[in-house]
């Protein structure tokens, strides 16, 4: 209890801690022998070692130990070494009685007495323990009553209360720790339910959609979409809620275009920048460029590359599709002027479109980073 000496001995002998403590306590009443012994053993460091495997010894060896201790005590009594026989007996009775009743490895004493499954030895130990405790308490009580002249009734009530507390202590403690375990288990279950709910809303839904879809391209998009969403959920922030970085805003914009137009979009980002101001225009224009590529290029994949350079933010939207003549008339009709150019130019940036028939298209969007105002 103090330095773990009793625990250490208990481990190496394979007997419950309580009995070893009781032995020390009893010996302490014989000229303080227990205290001296405890101190010596503490110095030679026979205290509890956390990961030492507790020794297990046969029950008859335990019995041998008990008789050895009893014999030692009797020998000292015969030799007249007991300073105060009443004190030794009282302390011994109290200590061993308590140890027997509070043996934490056994179920509560009342339950044990009533439970038909409990072995006879345990039951005997309980009865003997209770007997020792009552005897010890009675002797103690009468001594205290005499010394302090308090009412015998008061002492009896106090001691009975104490006895009940000691006897039921382990049981109450176990009940409390059971409650703790139950709480932990409930937390685990809630976590599992949350995960199940998430998987149900996302993965299972997608799997169902894939099974119902006859179109391989559609299946691939669904699987791809689910893959990136699951990855984000498993490994970090979900990009779809609260896009406060330009890269996440671009990724969710790409996911939306991918979903709406059924063309995979490969997004690669280098560096990052807070979302807002000029990057809002950048993301909006990039979305538009991705939609154009998905709708008009005929390419089976679109690439989006974003880089945060020291002074500006750059987006390339590239496809390997049919391309077009940038000087031709129909070029004007694709909403490039309004939705891409004006947006970027309002943000102080530039738009460059590189395309030739049969050579794919690349839209380059550049906006300056916000400067300190």
């Amino acid at each position: 209890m103090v330095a773990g000496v009793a625990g250490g001995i208990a481990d190496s002998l394979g007997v419950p801690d309580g009995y070893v403590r009781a032995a020390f306590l009893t010996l302490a009443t014989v000229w303080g022998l227990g205290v001296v012994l405890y101190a010596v053993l503490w110095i030679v460091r026979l205290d509890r070692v956390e990961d030492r495997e507790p020794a297990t010894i046969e029950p008859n060896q335990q019995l041998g130990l008990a008789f050895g201790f009893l014999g030692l005590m009797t020998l000292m009594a015969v030799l007249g070494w007991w300073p105060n026989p009443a004190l030794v007996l009282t302390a011994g009775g109290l200590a061993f009685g308590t140890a027997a009743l509070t043996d934490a490895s056994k179920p509560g004493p009342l339950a044990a007495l009533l439970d038909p499954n409990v072995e006879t030895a345990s039951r005997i130990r309980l009865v003997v323990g209770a007997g020792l405790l009552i005897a010890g308490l009675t002797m103690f009580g009468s001594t205290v009553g005499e010394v302090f002249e308090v009412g015998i009734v008061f002492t009896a009530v106090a001691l009975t209360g104490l006895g009940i507390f000691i006897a039921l202590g382990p049981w109450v403690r176990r009940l409390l720790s059971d409650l703790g375990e139950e709480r932990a288990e409930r937390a685990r279950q809630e976590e599992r339910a949350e995960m199940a709910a998430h998987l149900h809303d996302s993965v299972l839904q997608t799997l169902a959609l894939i099974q119902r879809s006859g179109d391989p391209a559609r299946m691939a998009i669904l699987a791809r979409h689910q893959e990136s969403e699951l990855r984000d959920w498993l490994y970090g922030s979900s990009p779809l809620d609260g896009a406060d970085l330009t890269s996440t805003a671009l990724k969710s914009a790409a996911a939306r275009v991918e979903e709406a137009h059924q063309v995979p979009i490969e997004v690669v980002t280098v560096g990052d920048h807070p979302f807002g101001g000029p990057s809002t225009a950048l993301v909006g224009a990039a979305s538009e460029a991705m939609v154009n590529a998905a709708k008009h290029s005929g390419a089976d994949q679109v690439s989006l590359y974003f880089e945060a350079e020291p002074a500006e933010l750059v987006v390339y939207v590239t496809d390997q599709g049919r391309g077009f003549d940038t000087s031709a008339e129909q070029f004007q009709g694709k909403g490039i002027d309004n939705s891409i150019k004006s947006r970027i130019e309002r943000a102080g940036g530039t738009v460059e479109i590189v395309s030739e028939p049969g050579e794919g298209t690349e839209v380059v969007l550049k906006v300056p980073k916000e400067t300190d105002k």
Partner: protein
Amino acid sequence: MSLKVYLVDDHQLFLSGVRTELEAEFRIVGTAHDVDTAISEIRGLNPDVVLVDVHMPDGGGVAVVEGVTEVAPDVKFLALSVSDSAEDVIAMIRAGARGYVTKTIDAEGLADAVRRVSAGDAVFSPRLAGFVLDAFAGAIPSDEDPELDQLTSREKDVLRLIARGFAYKQVARKLEISIKTVETHVSSVLRKLQLSNRHELARWASKRRIV
């Protein structure tokens, strides 16, 4: 003579899928589901290219690459994984893999990557090119060997174009250089990545740490 290819993946289904895809063009000399079998068989078979999964019990792809390279340094590795987390990519490249592709790659792309790796070139997917640019973005030179650690502006140009989704051939045309030069640039980036011990790389990988 067709190239000898060995496959390592602990997912049986994926393994047989890749096998079917590659069988037309390559000689599949063997397959393994676990790290130990892979190491001992590859040492004996001496294939040209090993396609290795990144996540497997007992050390994963990194253990296979390291275990084989010790004895047979000529075997070339192409990492193939569902994960394209920065940490995995960097770990495989630093262990000695000459390329890294995700499992979503199509059959043609995979065959192309195998050929490229067997020829001694590096295979960088757009995502990997982006990672490398990101990792080397900090302009702070390393103390030990500043020359080695920096990417040249030409190398960065090549990586940017790869990240934008262009094939090596298109990169070459855009930069008005030969495909061979593009390959040289990419291989030199790979070597820098493998030899680099700059702190930024480690810090960057841990920042993006994905368990």
